[in-house]
């Protein structure tokens, strides 16, 4: 009986020891799992935050690269749709005014020659600055008026005062100049050149130098 009770007691003790050991091992593994789970989520979060920082930095760099494309000097924007001109510097408007651009008239002469009067679009540069410019009257001007066409060497071809007091040349053979036809400002009325009011033309002539950019759309 005594041996039996001692045996039971020993079994109890062994049971308790094993149970306690199991308890200890479970506690440790639970803690380890817990410790492993939380940092994984935090690591993922930290990775996302790092990626966000990198992206924000790259976006700032791209924006700065884009801002550098703005001309450093004053530049001109001409809208052939609204017939408006805008003098800009550093994305700020210095001066705004009305203009006349190409009329989109397709002139078909009796001799089968034809001309489409439109102002070219794109980016250009001021390649010449003229004061008191003279206009070399081309063939189409005589055809439009129904007048005979003189020789290209005729001094009658050269006309003063038609282009105003100032002119800026751009592209192959186009000009921005003043005009005597002020009633047509704001309308598509020219043969390709850009006509401005004389005051606007004087202001722009002073601000733009050789090489300044002209954007026409």
């Amino acid at each position, binding site marked *: *009986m*005594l041996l039996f*009770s*001692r045996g*039971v*007691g020993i079994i*109890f*003790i062994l*049971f*308790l020891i094993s*149970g306690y050991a199991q*308890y200890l091992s479970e*506690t440790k593994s639970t803690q380890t799992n*817990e410790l492993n*789970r*939380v940092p994984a*989520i*935090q690591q*993922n*979060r930290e990775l*996302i935050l790092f*990626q*966000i920082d990198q*992206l924000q930095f*790259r*976006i700032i760099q*791209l*924006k700065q*690269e*884009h801002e550098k*494309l*703005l001309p450093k000097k004053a*530049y001109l*924007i001409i*809208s*052939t*749709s*609204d017939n408006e001109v805008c003098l800009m510097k550093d*994305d700020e408007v210095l001066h705004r005014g009305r203009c006349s651009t190409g*009329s*989109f*008239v*397709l*002139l*078909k*002469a009796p001799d*089968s020659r034809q001309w*489409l009067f*439109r102002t070219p679009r*794109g*980016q250009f540069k001021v390649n010449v600055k003229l004061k008191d410019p003279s206009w070399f009257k081309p063939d189409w001007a005589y*055809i*439009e008026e*129904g007048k005979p066409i003189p020789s290209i060497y005729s001094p009658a071809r050269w006309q003063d005062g038609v282009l105003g007091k100032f002119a800026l040349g751009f592209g192959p053979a186009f000009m921005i100049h003043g005009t005597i036809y002020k009633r047509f400002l704001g*309308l*598509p*009325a020219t043969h390709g050149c850009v006509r401005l009011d004389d005051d606007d033309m004087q202001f722009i002539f002073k601000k733009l130098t050789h090489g300044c*950019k002209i*954007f026409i*759309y």
Partner: protein
Amino acid sequence: MLQNHHQNVFNTLCQSIPVFLLFVFLSSCQQNKQTTDQDANQNSSSTNNLIVETNDSLHQKLIDLEMEELFWKNRVSMSRDVSIDLVIDLVDSIMSLEIKGVPVRKTKISAYQISNSILYLKWYTAYKSWLASPFHLKQDSITTIPKEPVFIKDLSTTPLEAFDDWTYFTRLENERSIHYLLEFDRGLMIWIDQENDSVAVHDSLSRPELLGHWIKMVIPAPDAKAIYRALNTSSALALRY
């Protein structure tokens, strides 16, 4: 001998009692530990839920920033061409024309609608390939205004005196309402409607019926005309939504 046996039993019992009490104590500790574990699990799961929710919003922010990066990359890339390009930023509701990266015309988008197929691209991260480079204009169709309002003066058939009032053509054109469809590569279509007091915005956006990836927008009439006239088949588009 019997007395010694009883005493031994008694001694064994006495030795067993504290062991038994220890057993009870440890088992109760284990129960508490399980309860604590359950609470800890609940707490940690609620904390994890919070972290997961925050991770979701961060993930969304990551996507938005990736799309913004692609948008600016495309704008810089377009600036290397000589064409007149279009920039549509639906996040800030701004549409603009650019020449060599210089904005020449900006307008506010009054209203817009975007197809579900474009939104799905964002959800399934397919936007990265779709927005990887600028879109190129293939054609403009279904337009109410001419690309170039050419007025023919044929002096071989008509006398000069018949062409007095050429400005009539311009006045007539200004009276038309402006709507047009721009078709780009990668299946993108953009429908532009001018702002019109007589037609509600949702009516403008409800027509026409478009399939695939489309965006419908309402902008002021002068800007709609200027943008349409400026674009050509060499134009590119940078899009952000």
